[in-house]
């Protein structure tokens, strides 16, 4: 049986407004496949699960189609829907033991659908229930226990046995492993695979990205009731949508070594007001300040478009839902609602429905962009080849660490990337534009986007400048229109960001009166004051003592989350790289020998040089 959800929209009525829980969701669940539905809490995952059983509360309005085989659940009356429940689709509900009636034994509850739905005699129903439970490793004694007498894993298996008792073609798993230890979790994951092998369709609702990646075939990422990305579940670590990437970075999996990220801001509720003039209002759920983005309906037909209508039919749209939290959102993102498109092929026709979903993404910019792209870039100094042709991509919002021995060409590559050096051959593009060309046409605009921190801080600052002048210099150069007060304000902010003093006396000091650590931070403040998109830093913390280094690195990571700052960091310190890098690029003798997710590179190095570096780092 194929399950198809077409343009499903669910709103909840609440007092004077309506809450949009699902917004034109398309999803297919094919036999033999596990589909993971991932997203933050409140994104509509559970609503979708309930809708598949027709169990939404009376306050919910449903539009669109839910096809369980041939039957459209939304078109059936309650009696007919009740006929389909548990036969066509069964659910393993979340909440574990709370999902079982405390007053009855597990066995009775497992056997109940057989008896009431199929009219099986008590004795036989119990035998079959016992067999089903035994298959999941629950013996006769455990089957006769009350829910409160079972462990979390036993309850979960009991719930699964109950869901399987009528052998339904569709199984909905709502956070099935939320409260389980990882052994039980793995056990269940294997079970799910076995069920898929029996040609069942499984919908795995979860916020556990590791489980989704490990268990599911495909994944649908949902944000505020809207599907943001479809992708093969195995590629969740290479997801493209900024939301998915941020979600993945927030997830404490064993395959990430760096510190947890997060997603800036909070999720909103989507409230549709009954008042005709004010159609869309978005609320912070638990933010400190309540921000109401009220938009007149006339400008935004998308939000009150008749569900089922093709969204491309609406010219001006309300913008991307994720834009307020997205670090790479442009003005256009706030104006135009992006359509769901096949990755990198915006002009391609809608994907073939019968093939399920390939990698599709709802992002105007096609997902996280490659901010920096080096193609066959090489550099020689006279007869010495400092850099052999190198390919390197840097995705927006990523922290990439260049590691390698001294003289391996790290600094050369970094400076090429920053546009501080011209490559001999090959090209470097930044934000989709050729770097060299950009610098010729708009040197100031480019300079403002790329911040550089040099290896020798003391030499990077003019000794005739005061602290204030040093930090203010980039702005003085690029924004001569800025008045003195604004300039001072930004200098002070920048200094405070790198934890430097902001008193007037300090501002009047000269570099020679400062120690090396302070100068290093001064350089950082100078690089950050122009709010660059890319920060290329060559050993930025080598001159700092560990406590200050920790603070500065934390600051950089915070900027990554809040502003989407992309970092290209040259370091020889693998320990440091391990803590902050999303990606590692290893260099040896002017060649990029290995590049990949930091965790993978560190745990399974593919190149002998990497292994050598790791070995050296662990022994010292």
């Amino acid at each position, binding site marked *: 049986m194929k399950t198809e959800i077409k343009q499903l929209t669910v709103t909840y009525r609440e007092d004077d407004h309506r809450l949009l829980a699902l917004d034109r969701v398309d999803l297919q669940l094919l036999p033999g496949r596990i589909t993971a539905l991932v997203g933050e809490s409140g994104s509509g995952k559970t609503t979708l699960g309930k809708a598949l059983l027709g169990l939404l509360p009376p306050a919910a309005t449903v539009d669109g189609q839910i096809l369980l085989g041939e039957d459209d659940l939304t078109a059936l009356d309650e009696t007919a829907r*009740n006929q389909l429940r548990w036969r066509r689709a069964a659910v393993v509900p979340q909440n574990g033991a709370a999902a079982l009636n405390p*007053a009855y034994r597990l066995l009775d509850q497992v056997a109940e659908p057989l008896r009431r739905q199929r009219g099986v005699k008590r004795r036989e129903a119990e035998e079959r229930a016992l067999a089903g439970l035994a298959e999941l490793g629950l013996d006769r004694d455990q089957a006769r226990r009350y829910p409160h007498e079972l462990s979390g894993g036993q309850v979960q298996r009991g719930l699964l046995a109950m869901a399987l008792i009528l052998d339904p073609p569709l199984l909905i798993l709502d956070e099935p492993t939320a409260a389980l230890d990882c052994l039980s979790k793995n056990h269940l994951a294997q079970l799910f695979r076995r069920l898929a092998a029996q040609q069942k369709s499984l919908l795995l609702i979860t916020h556990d990205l590791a489980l989704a990646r490990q268990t599911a075939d495909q994944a649908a990422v949902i944000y505020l009731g809207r599907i943001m990305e479809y992708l093969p579940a195995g590629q969740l670590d290479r997801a493209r949508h900024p939301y998915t990437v941020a979600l993945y970075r927030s997830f404490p999996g064993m395959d990430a070594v760096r510190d947890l990220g997060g997603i800036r801001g909070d999720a909103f509720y989507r409230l549709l007001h009954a008042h005709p003039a004010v159609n869309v209002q978005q609320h912070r759920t638990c933010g400190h300040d309540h921000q109401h983005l009220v938009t007149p309906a006339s400008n935004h037909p998308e939000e009150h478009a008749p569900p089922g209508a093709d969204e491309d039919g609406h010219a001006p749209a309300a913008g991307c839902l994720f834009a307020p939290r997205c670090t790479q959102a442009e003005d256009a993102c706030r104006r135009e609602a992006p359509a769901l498109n096949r990755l990198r092929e915006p002009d391609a026709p809608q994907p073939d429905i019968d093939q399920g979903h390939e990698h599709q993404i709802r992002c105007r910019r096609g997902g996280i962009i490659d901010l920096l792209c080096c193609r066959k870039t090489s550099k020689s100094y006279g007869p010495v080849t400092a850099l052999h042709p190198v390919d390197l991509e840097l995705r927006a919002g990523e922290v990439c660490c260049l590691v390698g021995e001294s003289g391996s060409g790290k600094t050369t590559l970094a400076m090429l990337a920053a546009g501080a050096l011209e490559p001999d051959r090959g090209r470097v593009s930044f934000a989709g534009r050729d770097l060299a060309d950009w610098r010729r046409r708009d040197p100031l605009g480019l300079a403002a986007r790329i911040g550089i921190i040099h290896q020798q801080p003391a030499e990077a600052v003019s000794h005739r400048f005061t602290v204030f002048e040093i930090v203010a210099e980039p702005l003085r150069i690029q924004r001569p229109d800025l008045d003195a007060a604004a300039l001072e304000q930004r200098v002070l902010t920048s200094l405070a960001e790198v934890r430097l003093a902001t008193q007037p006396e300090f501002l009047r000091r000269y570099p020679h009166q400062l120690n090396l650590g302070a100068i290093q931070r001064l350089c950082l403040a100078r690089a950050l004051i122009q709010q660059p998109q890319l920060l290329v830093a060559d050993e930025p913390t080598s001159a700092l003592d560990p406590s200050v280094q920790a603070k500065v690195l934390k600051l950089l990571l915070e900027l990554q989350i809040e502003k989407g700052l992309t970092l290209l960091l040259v370091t020889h310190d693998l320990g440091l790289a391990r803590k902050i890098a999303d990606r590692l690029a290893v260099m040896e003798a002017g060649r990029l020998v290995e590049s990949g997710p930091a965790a993978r590179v560190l745990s399974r190095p593919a190149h002998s040089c990497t292994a050598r570096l790791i070995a050296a780092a662990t022994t010292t």
Partner: protein
Amino acid sequence: MNTRHQPLYAYLLAALVMVGLSYGLPLLLPGDYIEAVYGSSQVVLDAEQEAQLRQELGGRKGFAAHLWGLVTLDWGHSLALQTPVSRLVLEALPWTLLLLGTAHLLALVLGFIAGVEAAWRRGGRLEKAGVGGATMLQGVPEIGSGVLLLLLFAYHLGWFPAGGATTAYAELSGGPWLLDVLHHLALPLLTLVLAYLPGNFLLTRAGMVMILGSPYLETARAKGLPPLRVRYVHAARNALLPVLTRFGLRLAFMITGALVVETIFAYPGLGTLLFTAIGSRDLPVIQAVVLLAALLMLLINLGLALLHRRLDPRIGHAL
């Protein structure tokens, strides 16, 4: 919601306290037992009667003898009515049991079903009216509703008898007798049901509303079970527990009203007997009625606690 019952020993100790009071209170009165118990009543004993009594009772009894007396129905002698107390009490007891038993049964069943159905239709107009009406009714004491019902249906309209449990000297039997009994029972019964039903209704409804939002109920619905089965087998059964627990706690409160209702309708049960005895300060009768009522109540509470244990597997099956 507190669904826990009192521990079982509490009932035993409470029973001991009541027996102890019935034994100890007379001792605190001035004078010896006879003087204390009979002296203050409105019945004047002549010397012969007093001598006979003293001989009968053999002076002040010990606690063991008092206990033995309780067990052997030797509860003293009502001088006001010239009858052994045990006979008076045992004559009145069946009528009280009939009245209160029927009232509680009706109020429980009706209140429970109404509560379940109201919760199922929560948010509807009928439910709101039900909750409002029940809250109003809860504020009406039995004294008020009883007297009003008496005035209206017995005195004014004359549909029901104004007192008694049967028509005196009618010598009825079989069907007509039963009808006669029911005819007499109707008004006090209605008063009590009106007093008990709202509490049961509101408690059931509150419990049900909580259960209706619980995950296991959603599971039951997802299983495609027939709606009545979901409502009663899965939801209502669990809503019954707090109602039962509360029933025990409310019983002491409810008995208060029952005493009054019997008196208002001159129903020949324990309440009326107590009223008469208080009127003539017939202390042995008061003592016996109070003790019997208390022990019966404790027994019912004990039974409820045991039932609760059976119904709620989380408490455990062992006593």
